[in-house]
């Protein structure tokens, strides 16, 4: 007689060892710190991954989902993504902006065209006031979804501050023009030289359009109030506008630039190129690591500051203007003093100076780059309209931090609000909730040290406005993209698959699946995942 068996003879797969489990591994995509910190909410890890596989055009399309200005932003953005990059804990952060610029330059060279997302034409008409980064970003998002968009701008050419405020050695005019052309080519109607309140009235705008986005920037410079005469005094904005219009100004031999922001640095470097000896009088300390401590540190990137210094710009920190020293009308210099507080007790920018610390800085011209304000003239009615009247305000005019990339992000947000308000079938666009990831969840031992590739700085005589930093060569751009750690996002390294003792990780074409019938919950896959893509969860 054969004894009765508890199990039928056969494969062990009939026995489900998954029942032993007290904890369960889960694949879960995370938000890498780069994308999390990007004001334009680019999926930076996503396009770097495509670039590392030399899928340049797909990478460009992924990037331009959120930012249609890669060649521009790759040059001028202060790249908060790189400050957040986890690779800094290993060797040096990924040169994200250089790869972004490479993608943008490739798109221009190869004449890649943006594609519409929705071919179905929509009825509702949208007006965008201001053809700067915010306005064009908003128009780009809406026109790709089939809406007829008209962009108004007071200037003869589109670009806003990108055109009038950024010197050519940082952003060549042709690069900007090519990216704007690619955006307009989607079918945006541009009415340049049309100022709302002058060529077209607020009422007409309301009548003709279903939604209005105001992205008029900050066009009125804050002027120095301490001196009655305007002789030998200029605002940074006026200086850059005149320069960008092609005017070749003749400057006195010594110029003082007052201010601690990007405009001050741009003005100073331009004035150097015009042959002047330049001193920046900054009310703030030099930037340390983060742009978050806006109070006492200059809101500029330390790299730009270094470049300015290497070009011979002198910097004085934590000093403010006591008075302009004149002999007659002629400006002979500036009396400065040390700054106690940058902001007054109401939180307004208004440096408070220490008595007894005065010093004299000789200068024949004082350029004040101490901020700018929105010029609402002609738009008083619309500026007070609530969103229920389908008027949105964004970009610098909306009060967001004054960086071009934040304006691009603001334009995207406005476009999404407009789509929701117009009850677009694809709305609402719920933001995908993803957990964040820190470098502590990563296993950095799996990544070898690799040097960062930098764009070559071009040595040139300091009298031209040619670009100072070269782009990366294609092989360098690929290698730089390969340096991305892919924080929290699986890059199919096979570790979990190789290291599962129970053959419970199944490799699919792209990615893996856990067979919970057999997973014993040992936790090896979590421990050995380089990028922290796998989480362990308790089983009740």
């Amino acid at each position: 007689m054969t004894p009765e068996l508890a199990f039928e003879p056969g494969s062990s797969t009939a026995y489900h060892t998954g029942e032993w489990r007290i904890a369960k591994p889960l694949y879960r995509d995370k938000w890498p710190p780069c994308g999390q910190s990007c004001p334009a909410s680019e999926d930076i890890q996503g396009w770097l991954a495509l670039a590392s596989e030399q899928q340049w055009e797909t990478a460009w399309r992924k990037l331009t989902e959120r930012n249609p200005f890669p060649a521009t932003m790759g040059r001028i953005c202060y790249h908060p993504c790189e400050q957040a990059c986890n690779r800094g804990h290993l060797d040096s952060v990924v040169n994200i902006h250089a790869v972004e610029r490479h993608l943008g330059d490739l798109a221009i060279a190869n004449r890649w065209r943006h594609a519409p997302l929705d071919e179905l034409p929509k009825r509702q008409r949208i007006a965008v006031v201001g053809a700067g980064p915010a306005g064009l970003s908003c128009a780009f998002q809406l026109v790709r979804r089939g809406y007829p968009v008209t962009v108004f701008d007071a200037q003869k050419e589109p670009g806003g501050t990108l055109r009038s405020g950024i010197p050519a050695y940082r952003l060549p005019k042709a690069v900007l023009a090519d990216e704007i052309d690619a955006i307009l080519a989607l079918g945006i109607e541009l009415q340049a030289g049309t100022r709302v309140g002058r060529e077209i009235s607020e009422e007409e705008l309301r009548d003709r359009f279903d939604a209005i986005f105001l992205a008029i920037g900050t066009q009125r410079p804050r002027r120095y109030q301490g001196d009655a005469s305007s002789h030998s005094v200029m605002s940074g904005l006026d200086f850059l506008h005149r320069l960008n219009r092609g005017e070749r100004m003749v400057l006195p031999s010594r110029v003082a630039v007052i201010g601690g922001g990007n405009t001050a640095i741009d003005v100073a470097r331009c004035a150097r190129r015009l042959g002047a000896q330049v001193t920046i009088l900054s009310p703030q300390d030099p930037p340390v690591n983060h742009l978050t401590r806006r109070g006492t540190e200059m809101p500029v990137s330390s790299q730009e500051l270094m470049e300015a210094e290497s070009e011979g710009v002198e910097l004085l920190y934590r000093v403010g203007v006591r008075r302009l020293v004149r002999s007659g009308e002629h400006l002979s210099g500036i009396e400065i003093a040390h700054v106690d507080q940058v902001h007054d007790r109401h939180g307004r920018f208004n440096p408070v100076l220490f008595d007894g610390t005065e010093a004299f800085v000789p200068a024949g011209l004082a350029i004040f780059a101490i901020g700018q304000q929105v010029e609402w003239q002609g738009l008083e009615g619309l500026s007070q309209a609530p969103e229920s009247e389908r008027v949105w305000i964004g970009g610098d005019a909306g009060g967001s931090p004054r960086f071009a990339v934040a304006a691009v992000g603001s334009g995207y947000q406005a476009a999404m609000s407009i789509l929701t308000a117009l009850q677009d079938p694809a709305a609402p666009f719920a933001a995908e909730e993803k957990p964040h990831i820190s470098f502590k969840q990563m296993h950095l031992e799996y990544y070898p040290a690799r040097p960062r590739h930098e764009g070559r700085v071009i040595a040139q005589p300091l009298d031209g406005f040619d670009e100072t930093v070269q782009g990366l060569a294609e092989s360098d751009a690929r290698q730089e993209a390969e340096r991305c750690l892919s924080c929290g996002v699986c890059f199919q390294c096979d570790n979990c698959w190789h290291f599962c003792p129970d053959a419970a990780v199944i490799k699919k074409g792209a990615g893996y699946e856990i067979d919970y019938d057999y997973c014993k919950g040992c936790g090896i896959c979590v421990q050995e995942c380089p990028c922290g893509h796998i989480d362990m969860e308790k089983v009740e």
Partner: protein
Amino acid sequence: MDKRDPFRHNVLTSGHRACSGCGEAMAARMVCDLIGPDAIYINATGCLQVFTTHNQQSAWQAPWIHSVFANAAAVASGVEAALRVRGKDTPVVVQAGDGGTFDIGLQCLSGMIERGHDVLFVCYDNEAYMNTGVQRSSSTPHAVHTTTSPPGRLSQGKHHLKKDVISIVAAHYMPYAATATIAYFPDLKAKVEKAMGIKGPRFLQVLSPCPLGWAHDSALTVTVSRLAVETGLFPLIELEHGELTGVMRLAEQKPVEEYLRPQGRFRHLFGNGEGAAELRHLQALADARICRYGLLDAATEWDTQSAMQSMRHGRGGYVPVLQEEMEK
């Protein structure tokens, strides 16, 4: 047959009864998937045999045989001779634990090598008799706590040193003998492929941590095996005809304490004077092995850092399952 995974055969498939985080189950699946299902596997008694063939359920998806503890190499010799007579060149692979290699199976292994059988002998070395409840073997390293080498008034764990079995095997004028571990898959793969390309007896010693017997967290199996290499306590070497022909260079030598700390079997060494002396002894043993094999300065293709670096889309895998086989 289980054909869940199109990218490997799972010669050792799921449902086996190994403990959670078993290093030996991982090592055996890697080695057997690298060799493939068209081979005859002979298993000595040990954990691997017990946990893969429980209650008449087999986890093996390839021809597999178990006889007794001592004679796996002898059985393999017979299988190989029979295949040779019948004009077949099916690979023959022996799998044994450290008990079945260092102690009980050593005589048959020596005979198999001496007679020149065309067999790959794989030893999954977990440094004690784990299957029967953690008794010391001749592979157990110095100062380890096992149930038959408990630390106490008279000793700090096992008195004796780990048997240098790779030197014994290599001393047979052995065509190929190598050590490997689970933490470095590309290295293990290169060694299995090299071994399979050589005719004659071949030997592979694969360090396979045991979360139960080594008393470490089940998630740390791979980490611990990596630290064994990085500290120099388990050198990864290749010996051909008795000569050292390859080593895994250490990118950076780690102190042995990093390897010992996560393991309960060394816990008694921490926090007392006699234990501290043994810690120094273990460090000296690691230093001596590094010196003996030149692990810090050998000119090698890769080192402990480059061998583990991860890459997008992996660094190679196994013989994939054929499409028509999947459809069958």
